């Protein structure tokens, strides 16, 4: 089985957030429930200020702290699915310990106050146990892997679009959206990335393009000190995420 990895080239990323909206529509997440998000930072002042950004999916860690803390094995790393970290919505009890334990802040408990009023969940009320049921929802659904619209009271997260990726022909080193035969298997965020800043492939295959890129361009993993060993690598300047500093009030 492949070990799926993602490479994000920050020198090419334009910060447009198409990955975020593609993910939101593919996976029917609520506003603010950004399984895939783009984070913006700015430092310095006019006329020499810098602004940078960082697309942030789930890191699908090799050593996922969220999995270790889950008391029910609802969140689990599936080595038979390329090492993707899933949440089994049939097992999740909504204790949210995994959200505490994730160093990257990529888990969501959408059973929360709506970001925007009026609440979409009132406009498209949930059916068949779903938290909400948008008319445009993706027909793919697999609650044992946290795919589809979640029920109430569970944690949701990026699945590396397992419902697409899992259908790729076995042994494919790279899921390249430019290959028409493969594009349907590419995660939504990678598939739509206009500047081609994202790549998806098999980290276990030394011949894969993702490994070549990581090698050639010195890929780094976010917060490597966490020891979580993400399966998402970043290339280029800008991978240094500034530490949090509150903004001046006055």
């Amino acid at each position: 089985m492949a070990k799926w990895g993602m490479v994000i080239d920050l020198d090419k990323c334009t910060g447009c957030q198409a990955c975020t909206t593609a993910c939101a529509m593919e996976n029917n997440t609520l506003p603010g429930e950004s399984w895939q998000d783009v984070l913006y930072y700015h430092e310095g002042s006019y006329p020499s200020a810098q602004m940078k950004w960082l697309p942030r999916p789930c890191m699908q860690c090799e050593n996922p702290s969220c999995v270790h803390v889950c008391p029910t094995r609802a969140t689990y790393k599936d080595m038979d699915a390329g090492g993707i970290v899933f949440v089994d919505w049939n097992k999740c009890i909504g204790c949210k310990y995994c959200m505490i334990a994730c160093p990257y802040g990529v888990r969501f408990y959408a059973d929360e106050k709506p970001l925007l009023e009026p609440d979409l969940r009132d406009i498209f009320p949930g059916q068949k146990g779903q938290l909400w049921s948008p008319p445009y929802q993706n027909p793919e659904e697999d609650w044992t892997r946290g795919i589809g619209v979640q029920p109430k009271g569970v944690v949701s997260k990026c699945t590396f679009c397992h419902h697409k990726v899992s259908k790729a022909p076995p042994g494919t080193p790279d899921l390249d959206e430019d290959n028409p035969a493969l594009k349907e298997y590419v995660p939504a965020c990678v598939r739509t990335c206009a500047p081609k800043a994202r790549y998806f492939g098999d980290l276990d295959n030394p011949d894969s393009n993702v490994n070549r890129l990581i090698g050639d361009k010195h890929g780094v993993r976010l917060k490597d000190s966490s020891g979580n060993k993400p399966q998402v690598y970043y290339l280029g300047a800008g991978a240094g995420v500034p530490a949090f500093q509150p903004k001046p009030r006055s």
Partner: protein
Amino acid sequence: MSNENVMKGAMGTQLLLLSVVVLVISFGFAMMSIMSQGHASFNTNSNIPWGQPIATYLYFALASSGLGMIAALPLVFGFKQFYPIVKRAIFLAFIILISGMAVLAMELGHVFRMLWVIPFNMQIQSAMFWMGVFYVADLLFLLWKMQKMDAGDWDSKTSKQIAIGSFLAVLLASGNLALIFGMMSMRPFWFDGLLPIYFYLTAVASGLAALVFFTYLSHGFSRNKMSQPLQDLMNGALPKLFAAVLGGTLLFIAVRAITGVYTNNPEIYLVWRDYLFASPVYQASLWLGILLPFVLMLSKSLRNQPGTQMLVAVLVFGGLFAERFYFVVGGQVVPLFKGTWEWDLIQYSPSATEWALTFMGSALLFTLYLLGEKVLNLSAMPPAQK
């Protein structure tokens, strides 16, 4: 026998009625809002997943553990002067834990699912799993010990073994509870291997506060109505222990605060500087809820006075509740990977529903306590000690 338990009388009945009313209202309100809005009725969210209900649970669970540890003084370590409060302590430990678990149950997304998925999946890597194991063990030992004591079995071999087992369960449960937070290296405000010690100390402090408060309550806030051994305890070892434990708590807060403010790591010092110390509520709870009681209890003349003791108990209730709240929330206020989407420390204050859960837990505790006072003889002691 000078035991004149006023809770067995009309006053107890009135209090019981009041507690039941508060319980029904708070539970009803919380249940209705959770049924209609789900956890959107909480002010917790994906950035602050754990809020006041978790802090309330933590507060109750640790108060229970503290009581368990106090009970171990006579039952395990032979400090016989503590016998007068031991049955009440064990009983309180049991019902406070029940109340805490009730609050937690309302906080979880799927509480009933928990009952089967945890045992069937045996995720021994998770501290949360062990929390379940140890607190269930704790609960069972407490129940067993209570049953033994109520049957008048104070010092059979089994009874002593149960006491030892109960003490171990308490240590494991509260120590493990500390590690749920203390092992989270990605939450540096919590990350601390000595956190169990801090939890033990504060657990005993809140246990003592509960014990003092409820002991006085059951005696109509009158020292004279207490039995002589109990009076001796209240004039001697107990306030000293209370003072020592409060001192230890202060010491722990101080070293955590000093290292926290000293460090350059913004995920720690910002929490101390801009969240805890910036909050008047936290300041008040620290100075009035912990330091002032400690100062009062240091004074030999003051600490033995019933009024001081009751005041200290109430202050420590509040002080430690705030301590739990700011501890739980403080670990989460620094946004994790949010960029400009979160431009400040994350703001959180509990919703009406979350407050209702805190009230519900407290009302459940009072209700069970008053029922206990009515049905059981919580002032009972081994015959030899009378």
